[in-house]
């Protein structure tokens, strides 16, 4: 076996080991599973009833009855994607386990791989559960979006991972006192992501800022599918290109924070 192949297999085994650690945790803790589904479900129910109301009072919503439920579920893909990375990382800090992890052969980039995997699992559980309840309660299936749904999902979760890495790195470097960032940071981007309204509602200067986010292209794309029955490839490409920069930036930022933590001693003394 070549050295490169052996190293790659070793990396995947270590990623799998960290995933196993968190699967053990999830399996033992029903409140954690409940928490995964709770918020997406509550949000979906809220926006479901708002949709029922607006269908009779708004011609815009009436064009595509599922537009608000789709928006809330897709927003939760972004939010859960980010939270999945940040919370799994904080689990290691809460259990004061980082020091043990990083005296093993685990590399930071492998931890990132494990964070992404766990984030994906958590997002599928959380948003997947809510989407099934939406079918039962409101007779609306987000899966009717078809293949574009996969493109939307991938772009939103990757953007969530990027922000999750920056948040995690910040918490590692500056301590658990910064952990509230994990729950609030993403919401700074919600008003300019055009989740529930088109981007052209924003002032022109803010539209330029909005279109620097992959999420705004995804939500514009979602509306194109639901209202115009058109899949906008240009918006997909924009989101993908922006996500390359977001993901690269997130990984670099995390690795820089990790190095700063090795300088400052935060891997040894985890705390506030």
């Amino acid at each position, binding site marked *: 076996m070549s050295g490169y192949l052996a190293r790659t297999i*070793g990396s995947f*085994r*270590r990623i*799998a*080991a*960290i995933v*196993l*650690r968190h699967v*053990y*945790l999830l399996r*033992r*803790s029903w409140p954690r599973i409940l928490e995964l589904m709770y918020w997406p479900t509550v949000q979906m129910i809220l926006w479901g009833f708002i949709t029922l109301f607006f269908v009779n009072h708004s011609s815009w919503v009436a064009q595509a009855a599922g537009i608000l439920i789709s928006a809330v579920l897709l927003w939760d893909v972004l939010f859960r994607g980010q939270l999945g990375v940040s919370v799994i990382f904080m*689990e290691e800090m809460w*259990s*004061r*386990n980082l*020091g*043990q*992890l*990083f*005296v*093993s*052969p*685990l*590399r930071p980039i492998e931890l990132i791989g494990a964070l992404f995997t766990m984030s994906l699992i958590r997002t599928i559980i959380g948003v997947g559960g809510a989407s099934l309840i939406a079918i039962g309660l409101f007779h609306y299936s987000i899966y009717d979006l078809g293949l574009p749904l996969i493109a939307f999902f991938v772009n939103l979760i990757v953007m969530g991972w990027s922000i999750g890495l920056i948040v995690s790195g910040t918490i590692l470097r500056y301590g658990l006192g910064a952990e509230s960032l994990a729950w609030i940071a993403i919401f700074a981007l919600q008003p300019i992501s055009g989740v529930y309204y088109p981007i052209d509602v924003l002032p022109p200067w803010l539209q330029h800022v909005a279109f620097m986010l992959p999420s705004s292209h995804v939500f514009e794309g979602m509306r194109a599918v639901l209202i115009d029955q058109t899949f906008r490839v240009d918006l997909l490409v924009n989101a993908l290109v922006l996500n390359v920069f977001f993901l690269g930036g997130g990984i670099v930022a995390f690795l820089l924070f990790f*190095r700063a933590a*090795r*300088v*400052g*001693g935060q*891997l*040894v003394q985890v705390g506030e």
Partner: protein
Amino acid sequence: MPNSVITVERLSKRFGDVTAVDEVSFSIAQGSTAALLGGNGAGKTTTLAMLLGLLLPSRGRISIFGEDMLRHRYRVLPRMNFSSPYIDLPHRLTVRENLTVYSRLYGLPHIKPRLARLAHELDLEGIFNRTYGQLSSGQRTRVALAKALLNQPELLLLDEPTASLDPDSADYVRGYLETYQAGSGATILLASHNMSEVERLCDDVIILRAGKIVDRGTPRSLLDRYGRQNMEEVFIDIARERYLEFGVEPRKVAK
């Protein structure tokens, strides 16, 4: 030093204005059991953390198994391990799950029989399916030691290996470390406040004070030099700077 496993040259660590480790140089011979001894804030844990790569030095060089730890850490880490009462394992995982995860991180084969043997040897069988958070501090120390021995390390770094253990359990663990060291030829470097532990286990003692090495020798040679009956009295002499009366100059004692 021939066959040295650890070579440290002019190692320093500063945190802002505070110098935690100050131009420390030493080597640890293969197959020896060495101790970093010193009071609170002497720089023991900081030195161990730099050896492990958890902490980057402000300056200096660390070589382990002939590899530069700052550049080739991942070549070395699979051959060493570490235990400390100050770094935990996940509380909600059972002992078995924790050790399984770490076995996988080290890429170990035959995990089940390996864990069964360690559980038997370290008397963990009765707590193997309990969560780590439910354990007493003494039980946690034994589990952490089991984790540190999973990969049968050639170099074992231990921060206060018998902290929180009752005298009987501590004696058992010391005996186990002696047997492990004799059987494997591993090198052990431990930081400890327990002087009887150091006298029993170690053939090389490095004494730190305020980040500097102030003395070094075998327990016997240190007892002779200070004219004391046990290492606790030597420790107090050094803590109270009486080493200067014995003509020992800081930083001139490293081998």
